């Protein structure tokens, strides 16, 4: 060992190396996430634009405005609707697929796995545009339905608020199921096969094995995917912008999409946008916290 830092013990040197190693990443996150978050809160208390930003007179006036903003409320309702319907369906489907693909007697495993994961290789804008085109009035789905005699003329899926929401949910399930499945599959591969053999000998059926062995052992992975999905859904942007353009009449707009519009389209209002984004931050934090608590108490 060279003795440049003679006074430093070997352990001290290692500790210093550790801090140096994690410093760049930590500093970047501090500057690019935590600092802007504090700034966002300060901006959320301000009104005006550009160099004329000043503190709002009743300091929370931007937050007060949220209470009266029908579009933002609509966007919250929409986002939570996507969350409540899409996330459970997707995660259950993902666990089911992972369980099926983890069968050692199954053939063509690699092929099936690749197929199911393939949607994740497309960008969010790409698949939004694919679904937009497929569900257009003159799109593929309509021409199939017309050929089958179910419809006589093209139905405007994206022009009706209920069907537009369903299309977004279908698209989300299509895009993300495989992604979550990969995590479950990886989690399942860490479970010893002998555990299942033992369960079989004890006479547990597939259903019982699934709930008594697979789900408990996968719990950390399930919590992780749940938090990732909640986080992702609360931040939905690309789909709303490109699949439905938020329409018809803002009935499918998401929170992020509305905040973006408030910032960069129409009359920019950074203060109000920051206030809304801070509300999203609180929602994400609360939901993640509940999730972790629920995950803990079941032990």
């Amino acid at each position, binding site marked *: 060992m060279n003795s440049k830092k003679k006074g430093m013990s070997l352990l001290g040197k290692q500790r210093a190396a550790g801090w140096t190693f994690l410093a760049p*990443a930590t500093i970047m996150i501090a500057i690019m996430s935590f600092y*802007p978050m504090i700034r966002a809160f300060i901006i959320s208390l301000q009104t005006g634009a550009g160099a004329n930003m000043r503190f709002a007179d009743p300091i929370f006036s931007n937050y007060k405005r949220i209470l009266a903003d029908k579009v933002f409320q609509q966007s919250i309702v929409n986002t939570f609707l996507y969350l409540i319907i899409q996330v459970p369906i997707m995660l259950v489907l993902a666990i089911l697929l992972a369980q099926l693909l983890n069968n050692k007697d199954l053939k063509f495993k690699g092929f099936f*796995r690749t197929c199911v*994961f393939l949607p994740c290789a497309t960008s969010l804008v790409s698949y939004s545009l694919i679904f937009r085109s497929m569900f257009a009035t003159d799109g*593929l789905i309509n021409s199939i339905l017309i050929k089958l005699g179910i419809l006589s003329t093209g139905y405007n899926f994206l022009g009706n608020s209920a069907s537009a929401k369903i299309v977004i949910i279908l698209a989300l399930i299509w895009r993300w199921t495989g992604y979550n499945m990969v995590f479950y599959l990886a989690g399942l591969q860490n479970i010893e096969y002998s555990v299942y053999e033992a369960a079989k000998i004890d006479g547990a059926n597939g259903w019982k094995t699934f709930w008594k062995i697979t789900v408990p052992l996968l719990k950390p992975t399930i919590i992780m995917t749940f938090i990732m999905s909640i986080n992702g859904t609360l931040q939905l942007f690309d789909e709303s912008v490109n699949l439905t353009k938020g329409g018809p009449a803002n009935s499918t707009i998401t929170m992020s999409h509305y905040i*973006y519009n408030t910032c960069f389209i129409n009359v920019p209002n950074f203060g109000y946008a920051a206030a809304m984004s801070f509300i999203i931050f609180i929602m994400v934090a609360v939901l993640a916290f509940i999730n972790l608590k629920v995950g803990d108490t079941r032990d």
Partner: protein
Amino acid sequence: MTKKNKSAIQRRLIPTYIFLIIVSFISVFPLYWMISAATNTSTDVSRGRIIPGSHFMENFRNLTSQQPLWRALGNSFFYAILTTVICLLICSIAGYGFEVYHDKWKDRVFSILLLAMMVPQVATMVPLFKMFSKAGLLNTAVGFILPIISTPFMIMMFRQNARSFPVDIIEAARIDGLSEVRIFFQMFIPTMKSTYAAAAVITFMNAWNSYLWPKVIMTDNKAMTMPMLIANLITGYVTDYGMLMCGVLFCSIPTMIVFFVLQKQFAEGITGAVK
């Protein structure tokens, strides 16, 4: 006897096969349709033609005459590769640092960093936009990469995977007189190839596919990325589906190639991460 057993097992799996075939079909079909639509005229696509046609070059010419395809492709490649290289370096060395030298304080710092996972992109968008425009970073690669080169998810992934890196190797290397930095570069990186592959796939895809942040800071058409370019194709009243899907195809091919090439290592890396 065993042969009979095997065929009985396979017979019992028939519903599983049918289910998996249906799911696979639904997963792949929209992508097949995208490719076939890229080779057909817009009218044929509207009529519901799903077999590949011969109009790819026409769609491609329309696309390149309307949009700066090569520039956007080049930009996206440049930004995504730069992000991947820097992100892997910074996050892997941090994950290694958090795991190998862990003590009470580093664990605390790590759990604070995890909180950044909950910070929504749209919340940091306004302050970052203001910061970056003041610093003259709009329309630059640096502006693109800075917010995404250090993510808690990546650090966590490397930290989890570093757990499987044997301490004995580190101890032995120290006795041989290797410095801490060289242990990381010469021992850790070569043994953790599959983790790096998985991280590279995820980072490259995220960077290539990112849309909100580029849309905010890339105000100049010259700095446009692929997702921005294809989103521009639906701004008119009439959509040319052939041309649109041709663009979507160009936006999807690079991420698909990356995924296919690194698929095996990707699965291994994820397995290490959820342990």
